């Protein structure tokens, strides 16, 4: 086991730069998720760590070693692919034993380690099957088994749950977390699903356009998003945004909605800002804002209600116990401590929370 450090990593294809100055250090045994929209460069970073992709600039350090010029086989990393990437012509046992065989381990040791990993992942009854005879979830487990069996320095996960259905995804999420607890290997997990990132990892790194937007614990990102992008990306359903201008210490929209907030700096009058309030932070009732209900989406315990606040469709989360019909009028207020304000130009948060 070992930690991992990325120092000023950059990647460009010709004149097109896809990754710029990524600095990230992952402690030994830590589980870090890289999250961002498609094309933000998260998979490229993972592939660069794996050695499947060259880096244009910077240094990758695994343990104490700079691994820039090492081949994937010399880096001692294990990777779980989105498409599982199992060898279709080999049985589950052979799939898991392949790396050990190549590294010249004895038959007895291979057998012992494969069976140990298979026991851990409940794969023992499947050892003699070919990948084509397995379900998606089982294949994913074999892919993880193949990674576990070799006792790597770093685990890399490249959107491992994207090909599974919703229910299985939740189950496998739990299994990955349990696996990490058991083996405690440094892990990097790439996903575009922020729920996955938040539930699994110790630390989340949000990327956009090849640049790290913010890194921190899941709740830190949720509670104190550094900028507009992180605020919009973390949290489901997404944060509501209102274009506004600061007037007399509070943000006002063109339609006349007023949002008081606690400023941290530069809340001078006339500054263009974007106000952000999460659907779950609106409180029903109160004297804040009222609007007509245009859309109701019940999910059981909670109901997503879309309100028309001064011509602005706004999502509000209310308890599933309340019966709300389309066309009704709903009053909501935004608590001071939960109102986020961002600079319209730079996107940086200027409210205190």
């Amino acid at each position: 086991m070992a930690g991992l450090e990325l120092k000023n990593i950059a990647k460009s294809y010709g004149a097109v730069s896809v990754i710029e100055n990524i600095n990230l250090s992952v402690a030994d045994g830590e589980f870090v998720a890289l999250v961002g929209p498609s094309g933000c460069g998260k998979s490229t970073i993972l592939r660069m760590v794996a050695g499947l992709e060259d880096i244009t600039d910077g240094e990758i350090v695994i343990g104490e070693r700079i691994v820039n010029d090492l081949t994937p086989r010399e880096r001692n990393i294990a990777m779980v692919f989105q498409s599982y990437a199992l060898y279709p012509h080999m049985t589950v046992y052979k799939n898991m034993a392949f790396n050990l065989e190549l590294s010249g381990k004895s038959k007895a040791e291979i057998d012992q380690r494969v069976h140990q990993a298979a026991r851990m992942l409940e794969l023992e009854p499947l050892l003699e099957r070919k990948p084509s005879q397995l379900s998606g979830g089982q294949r994913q487990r074999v892919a993880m088994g193949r990674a576990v069996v070799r006792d790597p320095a770093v685990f890399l996960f490249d959107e491992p749950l994207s090909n599974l259905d919703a229910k299985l995804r939740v189950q496998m999420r739990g299994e990955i977390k349990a696996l990490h607890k058991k083996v405690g290997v440094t892990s990097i997990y790439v996903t575009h699903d922020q729920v996955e990132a938040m539930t699994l990892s110790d630390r989340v790194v949000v990327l956009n356009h090849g640049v790290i937007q913010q890194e921190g614990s899941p709740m830190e990102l949720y509670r104190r998003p550094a900028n507009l992008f992180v605020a919009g990306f973390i949290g489901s359903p997404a944060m509501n945004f209102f274009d506004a201008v600061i007037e007399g210490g509070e943000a006002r929209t063109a339609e006349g909605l007023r949002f008081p907030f606690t400023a941290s700096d530069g809340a001078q009058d006339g500054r263009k800002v974007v106000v952000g309030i999460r659907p779950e932070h609106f409180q029903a009732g109160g004297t804040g804002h009222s609007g007509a209900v245009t859309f109701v989406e019940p999910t059981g315990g909670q109901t997503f209600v879309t309100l028309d606040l001064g011509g602005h469709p706004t999502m509000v989360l209310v308890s599933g116990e309340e019966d709300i019909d389309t066309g009704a009028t709903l009053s909501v207020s935004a608590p001071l401590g939960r109102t986020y304000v961002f600079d319209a130009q730079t996107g940086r948060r200027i409210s205190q929370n």
Partner: protein
Amino acid sequence: MSQTSSVAASPPSMRAPSVARRNRKRQVRGTLPVLVLFLPPALLLFTVFVILPMGEAAWYSFYNWNGYGLPTQWIGTKNYELIFNNAAFRQALINNGLIIIVSILVQIPLALWLATMVTHKIKGAVLFRLLFFLPYVLADVAAGMIWRFVYDGQFGLVAGIFNTLGMEAPFWLADKQAAMPALLGVIVWKYFGFHMMLFVAGLQSIDKSVLEAADIDGATGWQKFFRVTLPLLGSTVRLSVFFGVVGSLQLFDMIMPLTGGGPSNATQTMVTFLYSFGVMRMQVGFGSAVGVVLFIICVTLAFGYKRIFMKND
């Protein structure tokens, strides 16, 4: 009353057959008109153009017949005895075997090696793919003609090379020992591009992430090729060998302009033998017997191969 109760009480397994029978009846009624409408034309064409000619050839093979008038002189299995006692036919069989062996041992490995090269993302790979495929596009007869000139001991490319080296140019196509190797060279040149294209398609269908997984598992280039790529190409290799075998048994049009089966039958294949000894010499009965033997060999090889090697493909 008692009747209804008995029906209601009868277990589902007893009721099922009648339902199944009704379903089957409905199915037959649905498929019968389709069978009546569509089967006869196909059956008729197949019978008239495939079954009948084959049967006819088999029938002629028992006659001594030159093709004029009706076959009247029944000679039993004499034609077949003649075939197997004919040294040229035995040579043709050996040559066909040789072509199959060279195709498996030289042509297919060469094609596979080149395919792995031209599927890499390097500049000019597509151009090379096209260049390698070019001989296959050429008509067999044209290729035969070209190589006849290349091998010509007076004016050809080979003669030119030997002359510049200050040596006397050989006449390979006229040499009993050299003609067959020269011909094999042309065959490899002509068809490797086709096999290469099969392998290119096969290689492209391999999931790239599987090869990356092998990289991460620590496989070297050779290990990756022999333990991942090649097993995954299994069906393509088997198909390629199948085409090689069938192609060898059909080889004719390239040989005719090159050597015509000569010198002294050294480059005969089964089809050129059939043509030279059956058609050219007006021995239609004998030729038919050769055709029957060729047919049996082809069918046995093709079906045997498919049964044994391609059963899972």
